[in-house]
C-alpha cells in the first residue's frame, strides 16, 4: 500500500492556509492540517464549521480562494485529474442512483474506473456480499433503507481501492446498529493501510476511529492532537453521582465539599452532581465513605475522565451539536438521508 513517493513525503494529505468564502460568508479562514499516510484523521466541528468545504476542496469539487492542498503529493489545483484517480469519496448524501440496482450502481462506478465489464461485475458482487447487500443486489437503490444506501455508497467509493478515502459524516442519519457496523468497517479499513479523513459531529465517533483530530469552528482550527491530548487540555477527573431526588443534590454537594478541587456542578433535571477531584480512586473511596452515613440515596457513582463533549464545550463555549446550520447550499439536508433507516 505504501508506495515510495517524493522524498520526505509521508503525509497523504497536506493542507496549508486554506481559505474559502461563499459570498459574505467565510467558510474557511486559513486551515492547516496534515494526515500521515495510513492514518485516520477526525475532522470535528459543528454544522457550518467548514468540514465539508475542506473535503470538497481536497476531492477537487471546489477550488479554494487561497492556500495549498495536496493529496499523496499531488496538488489538487494543478493536477485534479491525478488526484481523482487515487481518492475515494463518500459524501454527506448517499450518492447512489436510486433507479439503478445496487449491483448496477457498483458496476457503473467500476466501469468508469476502467476495470472492464467482467472485473467490475466481479468486484461489485464481492463488495455487495461483504456489505451484507447480496439479497438486495437486484433491487433498485430506491427501495434501500438509509443504512443500506450508506453501505452501498461506501462500497462504490472502494471499488477501485483508493489510497485516500474521504468520509463526510459517514454515520449521520444511521440507526445505532448500522452505526456500530460502519465503525467496525472503517476501523478495519484503516487497519488495512488506507488513509482516511473522516468528518463528524459525533465526538464518540472520532474518539473511536481517529488517530488524531483537528477541531474546527467557524472556519478556523481551534484544537488538534490525539483524543488524550485534547482531553488533557480540559483538565482532570470528575466524580459524578446520580441521586434519587433533586432535593438530595444540596446535601450531597455539602457532604462532598471537602473533596472538591474546583466548582461543583449540580443538574436538577438529571439529578446529577459533578465534582472535580484529585486523587483518582482514593477520592472515589472517600466520597463513598462520606455519603455512607447520610440520607442521600445514590443511584449511580463513578469517576469520569473528560470526554470530547467537555473538550468542545471548553474550547468553543458551545456544545458540538448546537451550531447553526449554515453550510453551503450544495445539496439537501442530511435529515433527508436519515429518515428511512431500519
Amino acid at each position, binding site marked *: 500500500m505504501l508506495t515510495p513517493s517524493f522524498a520526505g513525503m509521508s503525509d497523504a494529505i497536506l493542507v496549508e492556509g486554506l481559505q474559502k468564502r461563499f459570498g459574505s460568508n467565510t467558510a474557511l479562514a486559513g486551515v492547516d492540517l496534515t494526515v500521515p499516510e495510513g492514518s*485516520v484523521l477526525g475532522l470535528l466541528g459543528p454544522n457550518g464549521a467548514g468540514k465539508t468545504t475542506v473535503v470538497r476542496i481536497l476531492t477537487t469539487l471546489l*477550488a479554494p480562494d487561497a492556500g495549498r492542498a495536496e493529496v499523496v503529493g499531488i496538488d489538487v489545483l494543478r493536477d485534479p485529474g491525478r488526484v481523482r484517480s487515487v481518492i475515494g469519496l463518500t459524501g454527506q448524501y448517499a450518492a447512489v442512483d436510486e433507479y*439503478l440496482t445496487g449491483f448496477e450502481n457498483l458496476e457503473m462506478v467500476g466501469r468508469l*474506473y476502467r476495470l472492464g465489464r467482467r472485473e467490475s461485475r466481479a468486484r461489485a458482487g464481492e463488495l455487495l456480499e461483504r456489505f451484507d447487500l447480496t439479497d438486495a443486489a437486484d433491487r433498485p437503490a430506491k427501495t434501500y433503507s438509509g443504512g443500506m444506501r450508506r453501505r452501498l455508497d461506501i462500497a462504490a467509493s472502494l471499488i477501485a481501492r483508493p489510497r485516500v478515502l474521504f468520509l463526510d459524516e459517514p454515520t449521520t442519519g444511521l440507526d445505532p446498529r448500522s452505526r456500530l457496523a460502519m465503525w467496525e468497517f472503517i*476501523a478495519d479499513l484503516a487497519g488495512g493501510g488506507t488513509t482516511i479523513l473522516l468528518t463528524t459531529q459525533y465526538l464518540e465517533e472520532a474518539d473511536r476511529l*481517529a488517530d488524531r483530530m483537528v477541531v474546527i469552528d467557524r472556519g478556523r482550527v481551534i484544537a488538534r492532537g490525539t483524543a488524550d491530548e485534547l482531553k488533557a487540555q480540559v483538565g482532570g477527573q470528575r466524580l459524578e453521582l446520580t441521586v434519587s431526588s433533586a432535593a438530595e443534590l444540596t446535601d450531597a454537594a455539602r457532604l462532598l465539599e471537602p473533596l472538591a478541587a474546583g466548582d461543583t456542578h449540580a443538574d436538577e433535571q438529571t439529578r446529577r452532581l459533578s465534582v472535580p477531584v484529585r486523587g483518582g480512586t482514593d477520592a472515589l473511596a472517600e466520597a463513598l465513605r462520606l455519603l455512607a452515613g447520610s440520607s442521600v440515596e445514590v443511584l449511580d457513582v463513578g469517576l469520569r475522565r473528560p470526554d470530547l463533549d467537555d473538550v468542545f464545550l471548553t474550547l468553543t463555549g458551545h456544545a458540538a451539536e448546537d451550531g447553526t446550520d449554515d453550510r453551503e447550499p450544495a445539496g439537501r439536508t442530511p435529515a433527508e438521508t436519515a429518515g428511512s433507516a431500519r
Partner: protein
Amino acid sequence: MTALDSAPPPLAAPDTAAVLAALGSGERPRPQGPLAASATFGWRTLLRIKHVPEQLFDVTVFPVMLTLIFTYLFGGALAGSVEAYVQFFLPGILVQSILMITMYTGVALNTDIGKGVFDRIRSLPVWRPSALVGALLGDVVRFTLASVVVLGLGMALGLRPGGGVVGLLAAVGLLLVFAFALGWVWTYLALRLRTPQAVMGWSMMVLMPLTFGSNIFVDPATMPGWLRSVVEVNPVSHLVSAVRGLVHGGVDGADVGWVLLWAAALVAVLGPLTMRRYRARA
C-alpha cells in the same frame, strides 16, 4: 487506533480482509477514455429507462395526444381536410414532440446534483464532459422511440411519406442531431438553477415560443409580416421544413444546412459554457 469494544455489532460487519482480497492488490486501473466513459453514462440512462419504463409515458402519450387533438380539431379548418392536414402537420408535430421531451435531460441532471450523485461523478477520474455527453446520448434512444411512435401514428392517420424509408430515416436522423444539440441548453440550465422544477419551468419558457413561433402548425404566409420574419429565422422552422422535405421528398438543402449550422453553434457555445459551470459548481 482506538481499540474497539469487544461486543460484536448486531449487524454483520463487512469482512474487510475479504473486501481487500476481493478488490485485488494490483495497481488502480487507468480511467476510461472519453468514448468509453460516455458510453458507460449512456448505459446508465438506458438502465434507468429499463427500471422506470413509466418515464416513457410522456415520451409516447404526449405526442399521441397532440397529434390527435391538432389533426381532428384543427385539421379540417386549417387545411380543408384531416387527410391533407396530416401530410403538412405530422412532420411538424414530430419535431415538436421530440424537442419537448429533450428538457428531461436537464431535469434528470439537476436531480443528480440535488442527490449528491453529481459529486460522486465529479470525483471520478473520467473525461469531464462524459457524464453529460453520455446522458444526452442515452436520451437519444428515448427520442428515437418517440419518433417511431409519432410516425407510426401518422401512418395510421393517413400520412403518405413520398420520401420513402430513406427519407424517414434521414428526417429522424436530422431531428436527433438537433435534439442532442438543444440538450446542451438544458444541461446549462440544470447547472445554473437550484431545483428540477425551476429547470422544467425555464425549459418550458424557452420551448413554447420556440415551437409555437414556428411553421409547425400553420403556414407562415398567413402571419403578419413582423411575425413571419421572426418565424423564418427560428431554427425550429428550418428543422421543420427540412423534416417535411425529407419525409415527402424534395428537401431544400439550405434548410438542412441551417439546421446543422444551428446544432453546431449550440454545441460550440453552450458546451463550453456548460462545462465551465460543471467545473466551478460549488
